[in-house]
């Protein structure tokens, strides 16, 4: 290429030995993937060291969406921080609200009415479905199938419609708040929800037929980016990425919070192929497993939602604290099972309304850290497959 700089290498790339097997080698090239690239799902930048189509190494660079959420947390009252949590994992904002609210409640010793807890579970599970739908759609897009993307967004639109009815917002809800939720469910919400579930549940199978069991899709994702359970745990992977590796670990089951011990649901995990409907090519821990765990989780969320609709009690929707909520000088660390993994909040109070420290453990942050380990000796097209299956949201990575 004329005048193209071939070495814009950051130091970390300077002296990694050549590790490619085989004789046929061409010149190595450094390739900047992102921060504006369709497959990096936001402003992630990967520096790829490539040899032809082969990627020898991928180094992620983050921070392009850093909005100082933790610093803001130290300067606003806990209620005021709820809208900031919306903007962490903006595809599953309800769960962020829920996680922070739970941490504050635990710190301040705030009781939550039972109806509010049910509403929270409904919202969290709906949001999990919405988030997984986006993941499903964009993963199809990464693999070059455009159509599932629009199907995913079509179904998500109904969920957003339900959210809009409940709280007036479609993306950044600020609905779940310390002590309960900001509003009671509107009239007809449960009917609409039940109708949506009836409509949506068979659609999951349809999408499995369309994309999950598509031969090309399987060929593109099965056996690509395999993460062993040991690696997954060591790298702190959580959520569908961890379960994709075959580790049956879900906070909703293993360390239940809210009301999750009341519901009957299963924890889907990635398994080796050949059994059931799982294709032969699949290895536990590969991109396909991570993707398929999400598809199955949507079904389980539907199950939980159906139980919620049946059990939802009448009563208060919020236990509003009297006056300003002061946080005692204690410390609490709490994790919830977000759509992308365990979302943790460490909140330290010091007797004032404004917390002394808010630390956010973004699941995508930890999940993304493994890319450097996994994206070695893969093809350029596999980068999209691996990144898409890890399913990061940069708002949560950069906070």
């Amino acid at each position, binding site marked *: *290429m*004329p*005048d*193209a700089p071939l070495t814009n290498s950051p130091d970390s790339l300077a002296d990694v030995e050549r590790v490619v097997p085989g004789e046929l080698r061409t010149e190595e*090239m450094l*390739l900047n993937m992102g921060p504006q*690239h*369709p*497959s990096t799902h936001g402003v992630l930048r990967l520096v790829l060291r490539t040899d*032809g*189509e082969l990627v020898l190494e991928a180094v992620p660079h983050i921070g392009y969406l850093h909005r100082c959420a933790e610093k803001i947390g130290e300067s606003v009252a806990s209620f005021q921080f709820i809208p900031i949590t919306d903007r962490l994992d903006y595809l599953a904002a309800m769960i962020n609200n829920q996680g922070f609210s739970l941490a504050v409640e635990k710190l301040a010793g705030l009781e939550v009415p039972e109806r509010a807890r049910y509403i929270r579970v409904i919202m969290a599970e709906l949001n999990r479905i919405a988030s997984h739908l986006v993941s499903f759609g964009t993963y*199809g*897009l*990464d*693999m*070059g*199938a*455009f*159509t599932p993307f*629009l*199907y995913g967004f*079509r179904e998500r*639109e*109904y969920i957003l*419609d*339900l959210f809009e*009815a409940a709280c007036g917002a479609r993306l950044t809800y600020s609905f779940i708040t310390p002590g309960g939720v900001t509003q009671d469910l509107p009239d007809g919400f449960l009917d*609409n929800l039940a*109708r*949506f579930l*009836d*409509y949506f549940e068979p659609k999951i199978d349809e999408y499995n037929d369309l*994309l999950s069991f*598509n031969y*090309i*899709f399987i*060929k*593109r994702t099965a056996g690509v980016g395999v993460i062993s359970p040991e690696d997954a745990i060591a790298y702190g992977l959580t959520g569908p990425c961890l379960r994709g590796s075959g580790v049956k670990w879900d906070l909703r089951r293993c360390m239940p919070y809210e009301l999750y011990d009341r519901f009957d649901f299963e924890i889907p995990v990635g398994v080796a192929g050949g059994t059931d409907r799982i294709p032969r090519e699949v290895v536990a821990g590969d991109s396909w497993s991570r993707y398929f765990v999400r598809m199955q989780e949507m079904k389980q969320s539907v199950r939980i939602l159906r139980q919620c609709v049946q059990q939802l009690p009448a009563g208060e929707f919020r236990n509003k604290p009297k006056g300003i909520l002061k946080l005692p000088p204690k410390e609490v660390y709490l994790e919830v099972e977000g759509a992308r993994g365990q979302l943790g909040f460490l909140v330290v109070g010091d007797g004032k309304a404004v917390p002394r420290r808010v630390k956010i453990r973004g699941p995508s942050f930890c999940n993304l850290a493994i890319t450097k380990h996994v994206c070695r000796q893969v*093809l*350029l*097209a*596999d*980068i*999209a497959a691996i990144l898409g299956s890890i399913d990061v949201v940069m708002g949560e990575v950069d906070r």
Partner: protein
Amino acid sequence: MAEFTTEDALRSRWSAAARPRAVRWFSGLGVVFVLGAAALGLLATRLTGMSYAVALAVAVVLLLTGGSCLGAAVVVQYPRAVGRLLQRLGLPLFLLAVAAIIVVAWAPVLLWPDKPLIVRDVLAVVGAVGFVSLFASFAIWWERKVAGRIQSRLGPMRVGGWHGWAQSIADGLKLFQKEDILPGGGDAVLFRMAAYVTFVPALSLFIALPFSAAWVGRDLDVGLLLIVALFGLGVIGVLLGGWASNNKWSMYGAMREACQVISYEIPLGFSLLIPIMVAGTLRLTTIGELQAGGFWTWLAFRNPFTLIAALTFLIATLASCKRAPFDLPEAESELVAGYMTEYSGFRWALFMFAEYAEMFAAGALTAILFFGAWHSPLPAAWGAAWATGPLWQQALHGVVFSGPLWLIFKGIFFVYVQIWLRWTLPRIRLDQVMHACVQFMLPVTMVVLLAQTFWQLLVPAGSVLAVALNLACTVLGALVALGIASIAVYGLRYRRRLVGTLVVDHLPGS
């Protein structure tokens, strides 16, 4: 440089003062031009010979200019009324214009039987360029409509009125106006050339592509080979464009394209050999005329090997037209847009035109070689009387039994298949593309080639075995066609009307 403010952006170009001024100018100029044309016309009646022709030509040009000016004045004065009128009458007017142009272009052919070859060639070139641009506009619009329907959207609905029919024209106008950006550090000459190097072969293959036995630019004895050669030439433009863009992603796209197209030319060539062997010629018109007698005579249904060859040919054309699932060179989720990343405006449009031209050529070639060329599925014997009857009967014969319309229809059908696949399937990875070529396509086509050789040596035409397998393949083909048709009918029967918004209240059951 003066700063461009938001107010500037918001200010309408046709401000209150500008509009009457423009109307005055346009109408004034228009009247002057028209009067001038009239005067010149009057003058011309007095003249003779060359000067008469020149005066007449100038008068016509003046008249057209004046008319345009008057038209512009009307548009500026009554933009909304003209817009509404265009929404109503745009499509009929457009279709009329196309028909008129075709008639005007072909009138000399019909009225001038002993035309010199040069006239025929000029017409063929004009026809090819016209067809390609018209088809590309249509196909882009159609692809967007089909994609929309597949994705439960509507696709373009606004421009021009009826289902956004003028979308491509509007896009084309937009592309013409766009800035022609040259990437910094790139090779400007090669960057400019690349678009033409891609476009010219894609266009020139239409010279040898017969639309029917009579409707062909040049009926070459090596027509098929020429088309295949020109198919392969477009790659050079893509390679040069990708390289000259000074963009690593473009480079990747160009490399992928070269790898893929060169590799798939081999199975493509082997699949081509089957119809060549059956027909014993490279002349496309002869191959086409071989399949005149109803759809059981189509080459694809001749015997199992030709059927397999037809399928491998379809797959190979997908790869050489870089359509999904082989769209790696422009894979938007991996390479952004591959070799086209740095192109904009008209040059980008040239690449698109080339792509759609190649798509149609591939579809038409599939039809000519395997699926009955320009013949309808009806047996030719039924229409034999019409073929030699009076002119209206011949015209009817051309529509019902065999003629360019059938080839265009079939070509569009295969283009539709390509669109359909693109919006349904994910993309293959590069190593899988190569693997599929070398490990699957190549052996299959070679075996088929060998088998076809022995078939032709050992199984005489008309023998029981030949007839039986011909029948079996025909039935299979008919069943597949019936299946597709029934799916289409089912879809039409149970289609759900798309509502404008996706709200829970519109869910089924409410």
